[in-house]
C-alpha cells in the first residue's frame, strides 16, 4: 500500500498512541441476541422521548416504543421481539440516571439482525427519493449522529431557508485511539455509506461533498476513492486525506482542516453553510431510506488490553455492557476501567448494567497498569505554567486559567476566558506534565454555570 500523506490539518491538538491494532483487522461480527435489553428514552441531544408502550406489552423488532413531538428529538425503537418488563430509572453513561424501557427477549422468536450492506451496489440513484421523503424516513428511523454527539440527523440535513447548506462533510476520521468501528464500516459497507452520503446530499440540496479520512487509514482512503471512481460522474465528491492528529474528527477541526474555515465560537456549522455527518450515520441513512429499517443496531468497537476478545460487533442498541462483555469472552483479571467511548473523550462507567446507546461507538477496557500509569503513578503537582495546554488546545483557549478559575470557584473569571468555547476534547489534560484534570475542571465549570443560569431563571 502506497503511503498516503494528508496535508490538511488544524492548529493545536495532540498525538495520543493510536492503539487501533485491537480491532483494525477484525471484520464486523454479529452478536447474539441478549436475554434482556434496556432502551434509554434519552439517547440524543434534544427532548427525551415519552414511552409509547406499557408494562407487559408485547413488542416486535422495529416497533416505535418512545417518541416526542419536539422538533429536536428522535424516536426510539425496539431492537428485538419480546415483552416490556418495566419502565424504570436506568444508568446512563453520560447523564447519570434516566428513564428507560426494559424489554425481555422472546426466547423462541429471535434471530440476530444481520447488516444490510449486501443490498447496496453500483446501481442506485438517490433522485428516486424526494428530499421530503428522505427527511421523513430519517426522522421516523430515529437517526442521530452516531459519532458521539447524537444530534438528530433529520434536523441536520433538512434544508433551512435561512441557512443555506453549501458543503456536506463526511467524517471518517475516527481520531479517538482504540476505536475502529467507522474504519470497518468504510471497508465493509462502502456501497451503503456512499448511498447514504448521496441521499443526504440530495436531501440537503448540497452539491459539494468532501469525505475526510485520517492518513493512518490508507486502506479506507483507497477503497472509498475507488468506489467513487467506479460510480463515474456523480458530482463534486472527493476524499480528503487528513493528517493523523487528535481531535481531527472534531466537527470544528474537520471543517478547518478541509475548508480552511472557522466556525464562529458558540455557533454550529450550518452558520457557515456546512453540514457534517459521520460515516456510520450515512450508512444508517441508506438503511433507513432504502430498506426502511429504523436505527436499532450499530457497530460497537470492543477494545483494550483488558478484554479477552476485542473486535467490532454488530449489536442491538440497548444491549447492556455486561452482556457484551460476556459475549466477548469476559474481562481479564487486570481490568480496572470500563469506558463508554474512547480513552480521550469517553465516559468511565461504574455500573456494568449501563446499556449501549445510539452514540456508543466503542467500549474500551483499560488494565490496572494503564490506569495507574496515566492517573496515579504521576501524582498531581502544581501547575508550572509551562503552556503545553495552550499549545495543544485546538480551540485556542487558555485551559489552565479556566481550570484554575473553576477550581477556586471563580466562575466569572472562567467565563471571561471563554469557558463555554471548550469542546472537552481532553488534549490539555493529556499533555499536562503536572497531571492536572484540566478537562475535568472545565466540565465541572460548565455544569456549575448551567446550574447558576437555571437558578436565575
Amino acid at each position, binding site marked *: 500500500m502506497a503511503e498516503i500523506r494528508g496535508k490538511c490539518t488544524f*492548529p493545536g491538538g*495532540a498525538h*495520543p*498512541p493510536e492503539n487501533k491494532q485491537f480491532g483494525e483487522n477484525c471484520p464486523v461480527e454479529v452478536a447474539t441476541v441478549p436475554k434482556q435489553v434496556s432502551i434509554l428514552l434519552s439517547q440524543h441531544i434534544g427532548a427525551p422521548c415519552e414511552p409509547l408502550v406499557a408494562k407487559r406489552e408485547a413488542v416486535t423488532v422495529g416497533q416505535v416504543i418512545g417518541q416526542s413531538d419536539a422538533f429536536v428529538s428522535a424516536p426510539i425503537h425496539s431492537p428485538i421481539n419480546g415483552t416490556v418488563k418495566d419502565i424504570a430509572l436506568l444508568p446512563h453513561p453520560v447523564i447519570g440516571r434516566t428513564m428507560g424501557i426494559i424489554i425481555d427477549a422472546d426466547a423462541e422468536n429471535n434471530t440476530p439482525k444481520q447488516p444490510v450492506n449486501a443490498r447496496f451496489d453500483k446501481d442506485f440513484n438517490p433522485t428516486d427519493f424526494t428530499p421530503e421523503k428522505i427527511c421523513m424516513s430519517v426522522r421516523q428511523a430515529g437517526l442521530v449522529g452516531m459519532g458521539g454527539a447524537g444530534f438528530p440527523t433529520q434536523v441536520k440535513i433538512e434544508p433551512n431557508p435561512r441557512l443555506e447548506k453549501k458543503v456536506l462533510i463526511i467524517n471518517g476520521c475516527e481520531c479517538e485511539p482504540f476505536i475502529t468501528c467507522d474504519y470497518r464500516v468504510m471497508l465493509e459497507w462502502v456501497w451503503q455509506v456512499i448511498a447514504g452520503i448521496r441521499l443526504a446530499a440530495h436531501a440537503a440540496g448540497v452539491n459539494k461533498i468532501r469525505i475526510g479520512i485520517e492518513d493512518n487509514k490508507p486502506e479506507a482512503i483507497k477503497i472509498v476513492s475507488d468506489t467513487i471512481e467506479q460510480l463515474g460522474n456523480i458530482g463534486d465528491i472527493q476524499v480528503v486525506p487528513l493528517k493523523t492528529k487528535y481531535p481531527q474528527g472534531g466537527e*470544528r477541526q474537520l471543517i*478547518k482542516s478541509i475548508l480552511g474555515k472557522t*466556525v*464562529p*465560537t*458558540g*455557533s454550529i456549522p450550518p452558520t457557515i453553510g456546512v453540514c457534517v455527518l459521520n460515516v456510520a450515520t450515512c450508512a444508517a441513512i441508506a438503511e433507513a431510506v432504502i430498506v426502511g429499517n429504523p436505527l436499532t443496531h450499530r457497530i460497537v468497537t470492543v477494545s483494550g488490553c483488558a478484554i479477552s476478545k476485542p473486535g467490532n460487533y454488530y449489536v442491538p442498541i440497548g444491549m447492556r455492557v455486561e452482556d457484551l462483555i460476556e459475549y466477548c469472552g*469476559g*474481562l481479564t483479571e487486570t*481490568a*480496572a*476501567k*470500563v*469506558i463508554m*467511548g474512547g*480513552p*480521550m*473523550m*469517553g465516559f*468511565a462507567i*461504574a455500573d*456494568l448494567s449501563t446499556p449501549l446507546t445510539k452514540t456508543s461507538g466503542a467500549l474500551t477496557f*483499560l488494565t490496572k497498569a494503564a*490506569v495507574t500509569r*496515566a*492517573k496515579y503513578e*504521576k501524582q498531581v*503537582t*502544581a*501547575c*508550572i*505554567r*509551562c*503552556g503545553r495546554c*495552550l*499549545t495543544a488546545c485546538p*480551540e*485556542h*483557549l*487558555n485551559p*489552565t*486559567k479556566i481550570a484554575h478559575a473553576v477550581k477556586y470557584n471563580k466562575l466569572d473569571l472562567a467565563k471571561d*476566558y*471563554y469557558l463555554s*468555547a471548550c469542546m472537552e476534547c*481532553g488534549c490539555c*489534560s*493529556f*499533555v499536562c*506534565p*503536572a*497531571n492536572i*484534570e484540566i*478537562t*475535568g475542571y472545565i*466540565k465541572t465549570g460548565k455544569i456549575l454555570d448551567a446550574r447558576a443560569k437555571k437558578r436565575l431563571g
Partner: protein
Amino acid sequence: MLSKITVSPAPHISQDLSTRGVMGDVIIALVPAIAAAVWFFRFQAVWVIATCVLSCMASEWICNIIRKKPNSLGDLSAILTGLILAFSLPPTIPLWAAAIGSAFAIVIAKMLFGGLGCNVFNPAMAARAFMAASLGALMTTWTVPATMGEVHCKGQEANALAAIHAENTYDGSNGEIALTQATPLAWAKSAQKGKADVQLVNQMVKPTFYGGVGGCLGETSVLALLIGGVYLLIRKTISFHIPAAVLIAAAAFVGIFYLISPDKYANPAFHLFSGGMLICAFFIATDPVTAPLSVKGMWIFGVGVGALVMLIRLIGELPEGVMYAVLIMNALTPLIDRACKLMPAGGKPNVS
C-alpha cells in the same frame, strides 16, 4: 467478576510526561555547563554547586514539614533552583553565603509565595539580588579560572587576555593569596568609559565562546550553554520564543550603539556571548512559572528582558544586568498575561 472499577473524568490516558521529567530535562541540559564550571574552576565550583543544591533541598524539605505539605523534593525544582543560583555566583563566594542565599531563594522567594508554580519572581534571581544587596564585595570578586594558563590563544586574542592578566591583583589581606581578575563585561565597561581599548574587548569573543574567562560559575563557557539550550529546544522542553526574543532584542539594542560608535562600544557578538546573557536566554528567562503563558506574551517578555539587560549594561552603572532585567520582567508577567489574553479560534462568542 471484577471487584473494583475506577471512574474518573476523561481523558483516561495521558502523555508520558511529568513535572519531574520537565525539571529533569533542564537539569540534564545544565550538565555541560556544570562540567565546564568544574573544569574551569575545579573544586571551588564543586563546593559552591554542592552547597547551593543541598541548601535548597534542605530548605524545601523543612518548609514542607512546617507547612504540613507532602514532600515536594521529588519534582526536582529545588535542585534546579540551586544549580541556577550557583551558576550566577562568583566562584570565590564563601560557602556560608551560598547556603544563606539558597535558603533565601527557597524560603522567601518560593515557599512563602505558595511553593512551586506560585512564585512571582525567579527564586534564583531573587536570591542573587538579595545577596548582591547584602554581601557587597563578596559578590564581585572574580577568580581566574584554574585553566587560565592552559588557554592557548594566538595573536590578538592573546593580547586581550594578557591585558586582563595585567589587571589581576594579588589580594593578600587574609594571608591567603587569591588571583582575581576583572570580568570581560567589567572590561567592556571601562572601555566604554575610555579607560581601555575596545578592540581588545572585541577580541575576547573567542575565549568567551569556549570558556576560560572570569565570571560567574555558569557563565564562562558559551559552548556548554548552547549545547544545553539546543537540547532543551530539541526536547521541546522550552519553546524557541523567549530565547529568540531575548537574543534578538539584545543584539538589536547593542547593534545600534555599536553602529553609532564602534570605538566606544563592544560588538554585539561580545555582548551576546559574555556574562549571563545565554544562561538567561535559555535557562532563567524561560522558567515557565515566572514567564508569560501565551506566545505573544513570551515575545514581549523576551524582548523586555533582552532590552533591559543591554540598557543596564550600556547605559546603567552596573556591568551586568541579567538579574534586574529578569526580576523586572517577572514583575510584569501577570500584566503581560492579562494583556495577551487568547482569543478563541472561532472569535469572540456572540452570547456570553
